[in-house]
């Protein structure tokens, strides 16, 4: 049982998983998004090998209209 912060919201996971699986778990988009774990960007290729640990702070961003 671990706890993470995803886009500012607390989330509980029953166990550590890799980033790739986490994206699936929350059915987040994969196209033109980027992910940061504890303030460091994780390249797409590294998602499978990146373990999400208890207390990790994740940001998953995409693009919206702006000026």
């Amino acid at each position, binding site marked *: 049982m671990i706890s993470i912060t995803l886009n500012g919201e607390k989330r509980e996971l029953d166990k550590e998983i890799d980033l790739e699986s986490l994206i699936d778990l929350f059915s987040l988009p994969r196209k033109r998004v980027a992910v940061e774990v504890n303030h460091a960007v994780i390249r797409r290729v590294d998602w499978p090998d990146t373990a999400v640990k208890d207390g990790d702070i994740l*940001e998953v961003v995409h693009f919206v209209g702006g000026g």
Partner: protein
Amino acid sequence: MSDQFSLAGIIFGSRLIIGTGKYRSYDEMKAAHAASGAEMVTVAVNRVPLDGKTESFLDHLDPKMQILPNTAGCYNADHAIRTARLAREALETDWIKLEVIGDQVTLLPDNEQTLEAARVLVGEGFIVLPYFTDDLIMAKKLLDAGCPAVMPLAAPIGSGMGVQNPSNLRIMREQLPDAIIIVDAGVGVPSDAAIAMELGADAILMNTAIAEAQEPAQMATAMKLAVEAGRLGHLAGRMPKRLYASASSPIDGAIK
């Protein structure tokens, strides 16, 4: 019609850069983008909603458009730097509109943090286009930091007040003859855009003036024409200003 302009090695036929925010609908946005003739649009980096419901905003943009992500919503250099890195990862672009805001009411730029972020991001190979106040000395520092252009504001973001300090833009143009100056934010009507270009701006970035017009596509066309008009007016060399009249028709030779 108007001459090309080159930014960071890319040649643009249009000197108008526009935003993607505040449109009433995607169709209205697409029509406005098409009418504007713009070749680059700005987009914001934002957290993916966790409800699983997400459509890709980018799918609604003309694929030919160059996308310029911005760091809107960042209040310090660190947030802006992280946002730029995420944008680069997601879009595989080094281009970033750097925006570090001082407060939420005025959205006026924090020049100090902007400069700090610019220095870091240039060091990481970003093509940094910084939004800042119309401050000549800060412009020099941003250029020294390696920004390929500077983007002084005409007025607060979304205010539509037009160029509030023409002298500052004129001085910036005269003191930085070789710099690329893109006026960003504050334009409200076509004449505002023309004024900025006549003062010597190389290009203009706007969003609200088009998106919040009653007829965005029509206003986009107007802005396209105004930017070209102002540019040509700058190149053509204006007549001298006089307090007094100068006859267009012969003074003599009228019947008596």
